[in-house]
C-alpha cells in the first residue's frame, strides 16, 4: 500500500502512515475546518491497511498537543476500527508532554474503553 503522508498545517496534524514499517504517526494540532473531510481518507486508508492482515506489531503513535471536540469523536472512530481487529499486537502509543496533564487525561479516557488492542500512555522523550 502507498504511504499516506499529509503535512501539518496550523489546524491539522501531520499524518505519516507507512505500510512498510507498520509505524503510523499523527502529530500536531487538530481543529480542521471540516473534520469529516480531513479524516475520511485517513480512516479509509487504515481500513484498507488492516484488511491486508499484517501479523506483526503495528504501532500508531499519536502525539497531539491539542484537538477539538469533533476531532475527539474521530479519534474514537479510529480506535473503534482498530478494536474491531481484536489484535493486541496493534499498539496505540498516546504520547504527551510531561507537563501536559490534560492530554494525559484525554489518553486515560480513551484507554478506559479499550479492550481488544494495546493502548499505552507515554511521556514524550
Amino acid at each position, binding site marked *: 500500500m502507498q504511504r499516506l503522508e499529509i503535512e501539518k498545517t496550523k*489546524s491539522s496534524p501531520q499524518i505519516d502512515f507507512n505500510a512498510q514499517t507498520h509505524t503510523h504517526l499523527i502529530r500536531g494540532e487538530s*481543529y480542521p*475546518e471540516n*473534520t469529516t473531510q480531513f479524516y475520511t481518507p485517513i480512516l479509509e486508508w487504515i481500513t484498507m491497511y488492516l484488511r491486508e492482515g499484517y501479523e506483526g506489531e503495528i504501532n500508531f503513535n499519536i502525539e497531539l498537543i*491539542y484537538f477539538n471536540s469533533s476531532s475527539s469523536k474521530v479519534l474514537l472512530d479510529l480506535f473503534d476500527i482498530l478494536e474491531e481487529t481484536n489484535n493486541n499486537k496493534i499498539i496505540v502509543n498516546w504520547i504527551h508532554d510531561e507537563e501536559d*496533564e*490534560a492530554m494525559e487525561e484525554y489518553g486515560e479516557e480513551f484507554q478506559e474503553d479499550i479492550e481488544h488492542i494495546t493502548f499505552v500512555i507515554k511521556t514524550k522523550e
Partner: protein
Amino acid sequence: MLNQSLYSYKDALDREGIIFTFCGPISHDIVEGVGVTLKSQMQEDDVSRTTAMKVFAIFIEQVQNVINYSQERNDTSVDMGMGIIVVGKHDNKHFIVGGNKIHTSKVAELEKNLKDLVKMDKNELKIFYKEKRKVNNNADSKGAGIGFIEMARKATQPLEYSFEKIDDAYSFFSIEANI
C-alpha cells in the same frame, strides 16, 4: 463619524478587560489566525500553560459553533457564520463569550440541553461527554455535538447563557465560559 468616537469605544472595551473581540463573518482563517495570536498573547502575559490551553480550547469551540450553527450566513463559497466572539480577563478570570442568531424554533431544545449541562459536576460531565461522543451525529449537526460539554469541562464555573428574541423567526443566543 465613528472615527471620532473610536477611542472611547476602545477605552470602554479596555475597561471591561477585553483582550480580543470580533464581530462579523467568522471563517476558519480567523479561527487559525486569532487562535495563534491568542496563545502567544497569553504566553507574554505569563498565563500558565494549563489555563492558556483551556482558554484556547474554549475559544476554538466557540468560534466553530458560530461558523457551524449561526443562522446568519454569508452566501459565499467560504463557510462562514455571522456572530460575535469576546475574549477577556476580569478579576483574574478569563472569559470567552460567543453569540449568534439561531432559529427561534431551536431555542427550547438548546435551552433544555444547557440547563441539564450546567447542573452537572466534573465527573458527571466526563461521563456525559464520553456517552455523547459514542452516539452518531444528528443529520443537521456539523460538529460532534459535544462542543458545549467540552466547554463546560474546561471552564472553572458553570456556563452562562441567554436567549434574546429578535423576531418571530430568530433569536440571539449567547454563551459564556469562565476560567
